[in-house]
């Protein structure tokens, strides 16, 4: 081998995160088509089946009043967007994270380089944010095609959707780095993700639920995402309530990040 002069190490922490750009870009190139198609086709199916099909019955049956004077299609569309980014976040923050620790062990390769565990965490979360952005943008275009977006507020739905996704991603990164075995994911799916998906106000208002369940739904991040995005796509955000929703989602993001940071350090560099 020829030896060329060593390239100096950049000490700036940002530099270390950005050095992963090609790593995540190459991984993205392998998967983006599949996820773009899913993000495009699934919302169309959901909107046709539930928004249009089921919606016809709901609207006929006097549902409009109990939904606050909106058609079921308009009601459910933002709910579907919020649940979709939640699902994308769950997918990107569970198996891939455990895999990079347990199976491929690619994180261990990364931290053998100048990267630190936190750089790897931030880089991977950045990748998840990019995936969320793409899914949300594609979904948003479909909603636009169905004519359920009220401008200009609806423009904010995509950036807000990214925050909703990240509020799920960061705690799940912590969980995935903390779990020893993938069987834990099954439990999280059954008692966490699936009930949250069904009972967070995406498909019907949570006021229909018993008090305790309502309270549980409000503790989890998805409900706040649904409410926020619905206000935006219907073109009538409630600035005070929505500010509280955003703040609550950010708490999940930050707490999740702190826990994930610890779990990564313990698991990778312990």
């Amino acid at each position: 081998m020829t030896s060329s002069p060593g390239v100096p190490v950049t000490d700036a922490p940002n530099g270390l995160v950005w050095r992963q750009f090609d790593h995540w870009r190459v991984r993205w190139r392998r998967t983006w088509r599949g996820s773009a198609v899913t993000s495009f086709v699934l919302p169309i199916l959901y909107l046709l089946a539930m928004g249009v099909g089921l919606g016809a019955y709901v609207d006929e049956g006097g549902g409009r009043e109990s939904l606050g004077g909106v058609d079921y299609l308009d009601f459910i569309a933002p709910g579907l967007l919020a649940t979709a980014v939640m699902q994308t976040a769950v997918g990107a923050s569970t198996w891939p994270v455990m895999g990079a620790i347990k199976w491929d062990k690619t994180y261990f390769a990364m931290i053998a380089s100048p990267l630190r565990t936190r750089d790897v965490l931030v880089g991977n979360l950045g990748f998840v944010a990019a995936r969320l952005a793409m899914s949300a943008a594609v979904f948003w275009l479909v909603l636009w095609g169905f004519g359920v977006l009220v401008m200009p507020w609806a423009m904010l739905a995509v950036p807000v959707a990214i925050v909703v996704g990240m509020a799920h991603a960061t705690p799940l990164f912590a969980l995935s780095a903390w779990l020893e075995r993938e069987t834990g994911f099954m439990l999280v799916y059954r008692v966490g993700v699936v009930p949250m998906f069904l009972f967070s106000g995406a498909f019907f208002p949570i006021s229909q639920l018993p008090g305790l369940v309502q309270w549980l739904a409000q503790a989890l991040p998805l409900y706040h995402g649904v409410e926020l995005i619905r206000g935006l796509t219907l073109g009538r955000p409630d600035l005070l309530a929505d500010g509280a929703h955003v703040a609550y989602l950010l708490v999940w993001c930050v707490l999740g990040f702190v826990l994930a940071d610890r779990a990564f350090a313990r698991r990778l560099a312990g």
Partner: protein
Amino acid sequence: MGARPLGQTADRPDVADPPLDVLVHARGLRKSYGQLEAVRGIDVTVRRGEAFGFLGPNGAGKSSTMRMIAAVSTASDGSLRVLGMDPATDGPAIRARLGVCPQDDTLDSELTVRENLLVYGRFFGLSRAEVARRADELLAFVQLGDRAGARVEQLSGGLKRRLTVARSLINEPELLMLDEPTTGLDPQARHLLWDRLFRLKQQGTTLLLTTHYMDEAEQLCDRLVVIDEGVIVAEGSPAQLIRDHSSREVCELRFGVDDHDGVAARLAHLGERVEVLPDRLLVYAADGESVAQAVHDLGLTPRSTLVRRSTLEDVFLRLTGRSLAD
């Protein structure tokens, strides 16, 4: 993060700063995982340009030690300087100058062979053009040039190992750390890898490796430590270790009987030492042939007799009471 210039003293009055040509300086190094003490106070000094080995059985603490030196895992106790810096504070600056071939191939199985090198080189801050140049060079170096476009998933274990070694060289490291580099390789691939490592050493790269294999340790290492249950039990060059801890020759005897211990008692006076293994007896003596003759004269008829030189395997058996191959 404050990357200290090479050689500057850390804030530890108890540790004198090692000289500049010392790349690894460990004193009383320990690693615990909860209740388990995997590394229990080891001292190691690795000088620039040498090939240094850790020889030890499963669970001895070799990988744990390697990970601490590689500035990935934090030491539980003791002092450690790598390339003149403190891994606890200067991890990124140290790792920038290390090459690491971990025990498990940590390759990205979804990417191609070449992509694995390209993205990895970027972690070291190398430009795209530079990593591309080095990737092609390294693939040729480990004879993987024709598989550049293959997905890593499709590679055999041996080819993955070679790719991992190639990847560890992408930053032209001063210190190359190889954790069991040839485990799982066929003989031909092992010799290829030994040849490559030897060439790197000729070019001035310092090698630090762990192995289970005697022949590997003898071939590659200038100096090695035998490590067992987290402590160093011997240190020296392969020849020196054999001289110090074993006889010149060994007579290996296989008997068809179950009563190896009984036979061993009758043979005890023939050599300096007799070891009883599950399948054979080892009689240690300066002259193995005369032991074989004496066994015959005693009226014993071993199924097979083999006289050979002592190896590191015998040193290991002597020091730990166990065979390395377990």
